[in-house]
């Protein structure tokens, strides 16, 4: 499963793994901003920005083919919307939309594949994200697969009782689905209450304390500068190549 692989990759020990989450987050934002601000006229060369996350993934020993495949998850939405631009806005805009969305997905993957979620959360809080929001995000991720597995059991139970055989919408199907959702909600709510009681029993005082997991070093700042200079250099190369090809 996708998330299990990402989780496994994030616990590696490559170049990006050793960088502070804040530097990686700021590096990601810098790259994406430069990509976003690059004019559509340079559409044939926008794929060159992909070398930034690809270099990071290589240096961190992340399987490139799998990473490229994961990033392609963005294409089912991006491709159709980009294609309908062609008759009106031209092929350049179509190509630019696809390239920009893919490079962005690859860059985000490079971040998530080399940063365990607790470190990413700490980095977000350090950069000013609302602490409460980040905590809720962590709990959503923590219980996402637990509750999803329960939902799979509900689907299986319904299918084994013939629920999948009818393809027409009916009041009975609606009530059955509502009953399944209601049961899933009740279990989730009870789990939430139980989790909260367990935290109280372990001395939870109303505030979740986190340990500072890493410090910004000169290598991290150097990495950030490298990303910005690298992205700007690629922009310069794109401009020159575009001029040369005209």
């Amino acid at each position, binding site marked *: 499963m996708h*998330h299990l692989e990402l989780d496994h990759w994030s616990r590696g020990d490559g170049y990006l793994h050793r960088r502070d989450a804040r530097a990686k987050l700021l590096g*990601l*934002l810098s790259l*994406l*901003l430069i*990509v*976003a*601000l690059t004019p559509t006229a340079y559409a044939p060369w926008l794929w060159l920005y992909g070398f930034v996350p690809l270099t990071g993934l290589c240096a961190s020993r992340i399987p490139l083919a799998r990473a490229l495949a994961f990033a392609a*998850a963005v294409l089912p*939405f991006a491709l159709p*919307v980009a294609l309908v*631009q062609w008759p*009106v*806005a031209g092929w350049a805009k179509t190509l*630019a939309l696809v390239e*920009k*969305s893919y490079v*962005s*997905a690859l860059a*985000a993957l490079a971040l*998530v594949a080399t940063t365990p979620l607790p470190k990413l959360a700490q980095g977000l809080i350090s950069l000013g994200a*609302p602490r*409460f*929001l980040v*905590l*809720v*995000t*962590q*709990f*959503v991720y923590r*219980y*996402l697969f637990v*509750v*999803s597995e*329960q*939902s*799979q059991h*509900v*689907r299986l139970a319904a299918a084994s009782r013939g629920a999948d055989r*009818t393809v027409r*919408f009916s009041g009975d*199907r*609606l*009530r059955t*689905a*509502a*009953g399944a*959702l*209601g049961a*899933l*909600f*009740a279990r*989730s*709510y009870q789990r*939430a209450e139980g*989790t*909260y009681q367990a935290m109280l029993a372990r001395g939870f005082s*109303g*505030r*979740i304390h986190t340990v500072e997991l890493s410090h910004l070093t000169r290598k991290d700042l150097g990495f950030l500068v490298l990303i910005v200079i690298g992205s700007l250099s690629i922009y310069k190369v794109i401009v020159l190549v575009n001029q040369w090809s005209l």
Partner: protein
Amino acid sequence: MHIPDGFLTPAVLGASAAAGAAAVGLASRRAQKGADEGRAPKLGILGAFVFAAQMINFPVGAGTTGHLLGSALLTITLGPAASIVVMTAILIIQALIFQDGGILALGANVLNMAVVGTGAAWLPYRLLGGSRLRDAGVFLAGFCSVMGAAAATLGSLILSDVHIPVMLGSLSLSLFGVNALVEGLVTVAVVRLLTRMNAEWTPAPPPLSSRGVAGFGIVAALLAAVGGLLASAAPDGLEGLAEQIGITERARLLLASPLAGYEAAFVTNPWLSQAVAGLAGLALTFAGLTALSRILARRKGG
């Protein structure tokens, strides 16, 4: 509905991110209820429920299936502030882990789906959820959450000069409409069930205070007075069709009104003329509905 990176212009990205961040910051403070972070596990697990609930499909006809999206259910069970926080958390995970939605576009996606979607759900539930029309309020909450988010998403794309052919736009809105109907019906069924299991899970909204009513009134007045500046001057579908097939001159005016065509005939300034007509219409509608509700209340009282 998740917009990837590369589709929105820097201006739309910036404005959406600023508006989204402000709304989420405010919602986060309200949802936390002071310094207590103890609500985080409950909101997180219910966010995981929404994710999982999207896996339970049911047929909606024509060989397709639908599923609950969940923002209306979150709004009704947790309140609008907590719903915005949970939906934002879900969108962050979808963008980072599942590459569903862009990173720079996260601000726009949060604004469209978490903030507008929750607001569109809360409004009808706030108005009707405490009355005998509760089921209608719940249905409208589900319906409006989907249509509001869809309209906001399409709006972001259009503002960024992403061309959406009329046929594709109509098809998208129709599909969203079907999803919205399904969302409304499923939300009603689930809320009824949850209320039977434990009434505390689906609390009625607090009664509308006089400040709340005044707030609605101010917003309505502003829309009536200023909305005309933003409205399109193009004819609507029926008028456009009448012009195309050449039957416009057959229209007959049976009753002349000083506010014909949504313009006050006695005001020369174009904007002021529309504003006066809009405010007059608002006042007449308010007076008529107030009178009707008093007559009905008197009849009901005996």
